[in-house]
């Protein structure tokens, strides 16, 4: 075995071992040792995964646990063991997750003193699950890491023990537990049909099976599960409740890595497992693309009408996941390259924005855009990061997000999906920009539709070192502003190897361009922001009528996000029925 093959499992085993060690010694360890061990472990894992990603460019790196290679069964149709398979894209995503964890640990320094090292145990297990989810090449093993990820996330969401966080965590847990059962049912059906869990082997068998109802059912169940995790319409309802109430360092991971990982997993399964099924490909090209566009618009509208900063950011995450789903639905190497770049850029921006929210919560005990009016002035570096984040989401023709949007946009058939990307980008960018200017620079404007949105008095652990909160936030913002040309040499070679782990070559990306679409987005963003900041309280009857007309559709969408668990589960069932109907329509015609 080569060095990379030998070291590959350490990316998962190291955080698991560190978590076990911390759990073992939790009652005796001195304060801060948990922080230190967690930071060192996550940085080491990030370096290891980055190194593996680089090596994987010369061929995917396998690791068969227990030495149970495919040859050990002496049959071509049976793979006994569980394999990890590190293609460059998967290892790079794992590297990014570990890096984001390191930043989040730094940001959380001193936050969780109350619970000894238990917070770090949960976070390290969370990290191990994400890495395993990226690297595994076995369907049931994928479910195991998916579930470990969920269990860690459930516990972390409820941490503040406030009323909202407990209820948000309960909704999150039940909806995502149902998703994991759906996933397990799908895995079970596929196993019954093909008698293997290995993704490569099963992918070949599916290519031979044609439009078998069991394959379609397996796809629908797996897709419903991963779309729930990735918060795509109509499975998305839990996200805003959970992300808005989780502790800020945890929200950084949720929005920056966890949900986009759900989408990454879906992309990987579609291209590596279901690419041979015509019906599945048709469903992905058609309904999933429109689902992505609809999610992008809906998330943007909801983000625009929030005043609770973390809830605003949560809805903007939903919107951006919709755009990423459009990237998945292209099923082209260029679109996948765009997806990878978007995942990176969005994770960096959203991580930084949630850190800004965390700084405000720690300093001012509030997260309400209107109540915080002008109070952020002394924290101007955070304000600059937030303005930069808002402008980047809203179509700044520079940086990672711009290139990613351009790559996805170039592969989208038709004008409607492109328009959806522009509108949703502008809505979320303007929402962030509006709050940033209100909070940090004291620009005013009477609150519009956001006035009626729910908010709650909240606070997070005060008296933490400001430098350690500001530093990771600024690092993430700076990285998001890096020119995309630094990442493209890697991405061009990683994207085709995600489509086929044993393939080779590089995809030629359209180099420059896309500036006009970005400038259009930016213009709408700035116009919306100015409109919000120059707004006056409507005094004339005509003005009030206009305000009512503006508020009515937003209030109607808001009413759908009722916070009621039974509603969420019902919508999820409707989503599953829609997926099944689409699959049946494409599979049997």
């Amino acid at each position, binding site marked *: 075995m080569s060095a990379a093959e030998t*070291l590959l*499992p*350490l990316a998962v*085993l190291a955080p*698991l*071992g560190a*978590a*076990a*060690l*911390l*759990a*073992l*010694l939790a*009652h005796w360890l001195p304060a801060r040792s948990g922080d230190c061990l967690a930071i060192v472990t996550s940085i080491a894992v990030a370096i290891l995964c980055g190194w593996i990603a680089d090596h994987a460019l010369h061929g995917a790196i396998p*690791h068969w*646990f*227990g*030495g*149970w290679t495919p040859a050990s069964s002496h*049959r071509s149709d*049976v*793979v*006994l*063991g569980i394999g990890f398979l590190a293609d460059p894209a998967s290892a790079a995503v794992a590297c990014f997750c570990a890096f984001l964890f390191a930043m989040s640990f730094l940001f959380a320094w001193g936050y969780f003193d109350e*619970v000894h090292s*238990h*917070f770090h*145990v*949960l976070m390290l*297990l969370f990290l191990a699950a994400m890495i395993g989810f990226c690297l595994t090449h076995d369907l*049931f093993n994928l479910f*195991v*890491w998916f579930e*470990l990820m969920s269990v860690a996330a*459930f*516990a*972390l969401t409820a941490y503040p*023990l406030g009323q909202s966080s407990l209820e948000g965590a309960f909704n999150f847990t039940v909806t995502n537990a149902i998703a994991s059962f759906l996933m397990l049912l799908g895995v079970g*059906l596929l196993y*019954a*049909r*093909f*008698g*293997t*869990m290995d993704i490569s082997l099963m992918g070949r068998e599916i290519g031979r099976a044609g439009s*078998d*109802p*069991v394959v379609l059912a397996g796809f*629908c169940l797996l897709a419903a599960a991963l779309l729930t995790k990735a918060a795509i319409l109509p499975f998305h309802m839990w996200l805003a409740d959970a992300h808005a109430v989780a502790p800020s360092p945890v929200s950084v991971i949720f929005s920056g890595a966890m949900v986009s990982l759900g989408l990454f997993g879906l992309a990987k399964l579609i291209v590596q497992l279901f690419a041979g099924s015509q019906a599945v490909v048709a469903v992905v090209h058609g309904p999933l693309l429109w689902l992505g566009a609809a999610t992008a618009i809906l998330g943007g509208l909801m983000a625009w009408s929030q005043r609770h900063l973390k809830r605003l950011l949560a809805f903007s995450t939903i919107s951006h996941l919709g755009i990423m789903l459009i990237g998945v639905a292209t099923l082209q190497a260029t679109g996948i390259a765009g997806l990878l770049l978007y995942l990176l850029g969005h994770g960096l921006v959203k991580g930084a924005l949630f850190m800004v929210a965390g700084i405000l919560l720690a300093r001012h005990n509030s997260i309400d855009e209107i109540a915080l009016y002008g109070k952020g002035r002394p924290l101007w570096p955070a304000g600059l990061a937030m303005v930069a984040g808002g402008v980047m989401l809203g179509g700044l023709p520079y940086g990672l997000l711009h290139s990613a949007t351009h790559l996805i946009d170039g592969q989208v058939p038709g004008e409607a999906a492109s328009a959806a990307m522009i509108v949703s980008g502008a809505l979320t960018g303007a929402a962030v920009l509006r709050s940033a200017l209100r909070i940090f620079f004291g620009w005013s404007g009477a609150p519009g539709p956001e006035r009626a949105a729910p908010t709650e008095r909240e606070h997070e652990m005060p008296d933490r070192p400001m430098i350690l909160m500001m530093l990771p936030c600024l690092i993430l913002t700076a990285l998001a502003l890096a020119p995309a040309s630094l990442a493209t040499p890697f991405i061009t070679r990683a994207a085709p190897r995600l489509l086929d782990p044993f393939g080779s070559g590089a995809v030629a990306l359209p180099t420059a361009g896309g500036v006009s679409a970005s400038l259009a987005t930016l213009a709408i963003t700035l116009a919306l922001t100015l409109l919000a900041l120059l707004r006056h309280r409507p005094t004339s009857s005509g003005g009030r009528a206009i305000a009512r007309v503006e508020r009515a559709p937003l209030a109607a969408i808001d009413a*759908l996000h*009722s916070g009621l668990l039974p*509603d969420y589960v*019902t919508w999820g069932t*409707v989503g*599953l*029925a829609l997926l*099944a*109907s689409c*699959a*049946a329509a494409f599979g049997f015609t």
Partner: protein
Amino acid sequence: MTARWRLGLLIAAMLALAPAVWAVVTALPPFGSPTAAYGQVVNRLLPHLRTVSNMVAAVNFDVRGLDTLGEESMLLCAVTGAVVLLRGSRGEDRAEHAGRVPGRATIERDDASIVVCRIGAPILLAFSAYVALHGTVTPGGGFQAGAIAVSALLLVYLGDGYARWRSRVPHPLMAFIEGLGALLFVLCAALPLAWSVPALTSLLPTGKWKDLYSGGLMVPVNIGVALAVLGGFAVLVAEFMEETRTPESDPVPDEEDA
């Protein structure tokens, strides 16, 4: 959405799913004659390769050992989560007072039940050790053994009351055992890497078929799982049990937990 609308929507969605379910059900391999060869290959190869007789244990601890590692981590995660989420105002540690529902009679513990519990606990504990050690030979294994051992610990509570149970089953020790079990499993997985062979490779001698020692690496992994489950469930039970205590600061009229 009103309850009526919600139910209507749900039923409509389920009716739409019904034909899909029917199509899948009729397309699956018929019940009782599966086509999957995976399990049959395991049944054929593993008794010879690893000299084990319990194939489920062979899959759990060797062939698909990584799944079990993830599963143990999940347990560690859930238990740690429960510890974190149950922090706060309640009777921590040695609180003597049981929470009391007004108007409900307190019944003294009977001598017979004390005797039964005191005799039963060690027997049950020995039985759990038996189940753990025979994991590779007969039905059983670390998970079942850990669960049985925790019921033995619960007998201590049943027979001798909360305070005695707290002092005999110390919380930090149980957390230590839990972490130790998980760490043992991780080390079993990681150590083979030092010899440049894949993780979880069995480098120990395989032992004899039907023998107490058979299966090589499965034996320490099995013990690791048993420890992790024992410690994990014990911590979980302790955490929930503390919820029945009333805080020290809020004294309740003399309600000894007899």
